[in-house]
């Protein structure tokens, strides 16, 4: 039989309550969720590339964006789901993804996570031309094969379409919406972190030591809500 105690940190307790962890464990203790960095988050999950689930997650925010921008957000999320399905768990179909959405201070944040093998490992195990192109990109850029540089290469190759035939565009799809709306994008996969600020056009790429590793991939979009004409 499972049981649990509430953590000492009240905000952690609120997170566990808001995510439904306490109710999963049969813990009926009341936690009032009020912390600013907890209360706005909505949680979604699944195992498939399911467009209806992506759309359901976006319904609360649909009046805030134009149809083309909604289509770009949908494209990014469904490609993240597809990448997760095809690559994250090496073909195992029973493993899942989690998505968290929040509207706060006029910015829509969408975080998409899996606990798979990570982009760098997935890239290094591929047998197709995309892996060769990543190696070539890193060689000519004078960059070592590191987790951070792999994520950057995968993003850039898809954008320049060098990695054809028509594979490897999922990550550029993920990036397109923040490029269009001057938003932010963070991709943290295994030991690598890629951070793009589209408003300032600055991109940062880092590789952490093992003790800072995230085992899996988390993609975070920060999408500013466009101002309306009358504002």
């Amino acid at each position, binding site marked *: 039989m499972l049981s649990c105690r509430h953590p000492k940190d009240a905000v952690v307790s609120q997170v566990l309550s808001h995510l439904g962890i306490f109710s999963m464990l049969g813990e009926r203790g009341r936690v009032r969720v009020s912390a600013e960095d907890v209360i706005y988050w909505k949680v979604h999950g699944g195992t498939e*590339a399911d467009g209806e689930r992506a759309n359901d997650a976006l319904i609360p925010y649909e009046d805030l964006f134009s149809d083309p921008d909604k289509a770009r957000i949908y494209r990014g999320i469904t490609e993240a789901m597809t990448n997760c399905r095809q690559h994250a768990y090496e073909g195992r179909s029973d493993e899942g993804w989690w998505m968290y959405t929040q509207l706060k201070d006029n910015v829509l944040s969408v975080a998409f996570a899996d606990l798979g093998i990570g982009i760098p490992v997935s890239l290094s195990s591929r047998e197709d031309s995309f892996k060769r192109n990543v190696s070539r990109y890193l060689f000519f850029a004078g960059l070592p094969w590191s987790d951070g540089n792999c994520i950057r290469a995968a993003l850039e190759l898809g954008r320049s379409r060098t990695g054809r035939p028509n594979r490897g565009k999922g990550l550029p799809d993920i990036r397109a919406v923040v490029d269009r709306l001057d938003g932010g994008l963070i991709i943290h996969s295994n030991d690598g972190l890629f951070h793009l600020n589209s408003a300032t056009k600055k991109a940062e790429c880092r590789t952490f030591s093992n003790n800072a590793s995230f085992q899996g991939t988390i993609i975070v979009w920060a999408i500013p809500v466009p101002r309306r004409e009358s504002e």
Partner: protein
Amino acid sequence: MSSKQINLATDFSKFPAGRFRSDGPNSGERFRDDLLVPALNNYERVVVVLDGAVGFGSSFIDEAFGGLVRNSGFTPSDLRKKLEIRSEKDPSYSDEAWDCIETTVQFAKVR
């Protein structure tokens, strides 16, 4: 001339996503094999209307349209004669689909 119009949003799904059947319920492979290939085999002209769907990822578009050349035995020349892809709300989807059709063959040639 016999012709067939496929409205993707109503005849297939408003929520297309994924490349292969194993990816999810409304994948590019399922659209291609269950709707598009039978229509192309049975009608002289096929019109696919993309308007009405929430959006499309590149995986879906490539597998649905590029896959016609890669997996289903059509040539770009066949498809230019038989297939029309309409995307009036966002013409970039139609351009992307044709790009996938043409690019698949270009790569086949240089191998």
